[in-house]
């Protein structure tokens, strides 16, 4: 009798342990575990993470002096800008020069091929290309990520509202969507940016803000269609009925239940869309509608687009960085698509 009950207790303890294991692993832990199986997906994930770390570090370094009021300690009128990023050697008054400021023209060092001083070379304007590539990462990635996030959020809200309420609003949104998707995206993008870019002249460096807004206003269609389709099927399910019976408001149902349940396709679209956004904004700069004063890979590539045969190092580094970024996001997006795919879960 005692032996039997011990065996039962042992078995139940094991079951409890298993339940605990499953409980602790929410959707994202499961997705992460599945993603780890895909080698390419993990490569993409590491690329994306290291690029983000690089972008954040670059942003902090570039803002550091301005944040702490260190950029002009002696009030030297000729020293408005920082020339070099330096490290102070503790205990002395010496500084170790690390890298040139991305918009500092190094006197006399124009058009140098990669060498010991400048590992990526310098360009025709006298900028250190390593510095341009490093510090360009923050704006380039922010543009891609913020642009795509805005698009996805806008598409999600419009899709959720139009799917949930239906009726006149839904009809208007669907017709509008049909007309917008009847234009090839890149052509519409260039068209709208070219006629609205004058607004940017009143805001310093504001061109890319307008570009992002325009990108979101053009691109919400795909996401909204997916969310809308998901909602039309979710609306009939019992748990939404139950929630409504409990007296929940529409906003609560949409934001608490419907959007989280339709999140997984949106996440895949967003990851793959970031790559596409970076390409589109770089293409915009490449064809002359970028902001020449901004430090981004796309604008550097655009400035040096005709130097490929003569000074190969000038366009190659920014192009390589764009390529690696897009590769990383694509690999990660593909792996996410597999990991979130319910068909895959059964097999």
């Amino acid at each position, binding site marked *: 009798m005692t032996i039997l009950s011990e065996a039962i207790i042992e078995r139940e303890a094991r079951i409890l342990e298993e339940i605990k294991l499953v409980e602790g692993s929410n959707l994202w832990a499961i997705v992460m575990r599945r993603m780890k199986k895909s080698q390419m997906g993990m490569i993409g994930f590491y690329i994306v993470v290291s690029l983000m770390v690089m972008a954040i570090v670059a942003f902090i370094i570039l803002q550091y002096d301005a944040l702490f009021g260190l950029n002009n300690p002696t009030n030297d009128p000729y020293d408005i800008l920082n020339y070099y990023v330096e490290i102070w050697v503790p205990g002395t008054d010496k500084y170790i020069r690390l890298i040139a400021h991305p918009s500092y023209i190094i006197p006399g060092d124009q058009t140098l091929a990669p060498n010991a001083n400048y590992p990526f070379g310098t360009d025709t304007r006298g900028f250190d290309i390593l510095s341009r590539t490093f510090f360009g990462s923050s704006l380039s990635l922010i543009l891609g990520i913020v642009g795509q996030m805005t698009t996805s959020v806008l598409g999600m809200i419009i899709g959720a509202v139009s799917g949930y309420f239906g009726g006149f609003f839904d009809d208007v949104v669907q017709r509008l969507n049909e007309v917008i998707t009847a234009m*090839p*995206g890149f052509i*519409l993008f*260039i068209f709208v940016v*070219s*006629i609205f870019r004058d607004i940017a002249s009143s805001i310093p460096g504001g061109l890319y803000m307008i570009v992002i807004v325009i990108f979101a206003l053009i691109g919400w269609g795909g996401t909204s269609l997916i969310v809308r389709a998901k909602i039309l099927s979710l609306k009939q399910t019992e748990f939404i009925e139950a929630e409504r019976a409990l007296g929940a408001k529409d906003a609560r149902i949409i934001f608490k239940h419907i959007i989280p349940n339709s999140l997984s396709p949106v996440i895949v679209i967003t990851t793959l869309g970031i790559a596409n956004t970076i390409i589109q904004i770089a293409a915009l700069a490449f064809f002359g509608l970028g902001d020449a004063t901004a430090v981004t890979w796309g604008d550097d*590539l655009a400035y040096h687009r005709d130097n490929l045969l003569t000074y190969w190092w000038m366009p190659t580094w920014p192009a390589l960085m764009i390529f690696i970024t*897009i590769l990383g996001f694509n690999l990660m997006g593909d792996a996410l698509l597999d990991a979130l795919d319910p068909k895959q879960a059964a097999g």
Partner: protein
Amino acid sequence: MIKISLRSYALRRILYLFPTLLGISIISFALIAASPGDPIQIRLGLWIGEQPEYEEVYNQVGFDIGVLDENGEPVSMFVRYFRWLGLVKDQYGVRSGILQGNLGNSWFYTMSGNIGKPISDIIVGRLWYTLFLTTPAFVISTILATIIGVIQATRQYSLWDKGVTLASLIGFSMPVFWLAKLVMLTAFYLFNFTGATTGDAFTEPFLINPRFYLFLILPTVTLVLTGLVFLSRLTRSQLLDILRQDYITTARAKGLTERRVIYKHAFRNAMLPIITVVGLALPGLLGGSVMVEGVFGWPGLGSVFLTSALQRDQPMMMATNFVFGGMFLGFRLLVDLSYAIVDPRIRY
């Protein structure tokens, strides 16, 4: 379900094009109307205007482009739109709009000093170059992608499959304009020929001009490559999905040869998703053709569009939007109609 013939389906779809085109024109026009900047000054920037008679010239130009009436008062946006459509008489008392086949005059492409070229002439002249570039590229890349996808799916995880997957992944992550530059670079080192177009390639009649075909090669190669990396990935995954189905196992169990299983049973069914994918690739191909034309200096509709966007040539932008939208809708219609030809089960 109501059964209607393919012909009436096609007719209905063609009729449906018109409201969509109208929507495109309304949105383009509304965006242009809402955009900042004085259109007369944009036009005047390309005008030889002397300082003393500036106001006179300003009013005259405003009248010519239909922004101001003869008293120098601004014309309402709605009137301008209906004039553009050809429903309302324009400033010269003639109905000449899109319904009459007149797209207006360009602001940037001028004939002698100050008269803008008719846009219809420019577009008809350039449209052929774009069609000669995109159509063969589209057909070649679809056929090649199908072949490569089939080979990859049937030899899954072989060295060939892995190699092509890696190559298409690399190609997929390459911006089109940079791919075009790399194609140029490669051709320069191999053949000492960059493919950047020169004037002698476009002497009329260009159809019997060998230089034209020489300069056609590299842009077509670039467009084929961009289409290929997108399409072959999807063809492979679609075919792999189908090869996992039960009826394929049944066909194999019946003792059919592998070749027969793939071409008779799997491929027929994979055609439908492939056509869908081709339809999805269309906007990318048209956008890509704009980029490729921009890089190679190919004087098609894409370069006209890019130039007009940079120079803010508003009537030209309206017209190119309209034509690109129409081209895209036309291609998509063809894709949809080919469903019915490929799949006998589909009844509209």
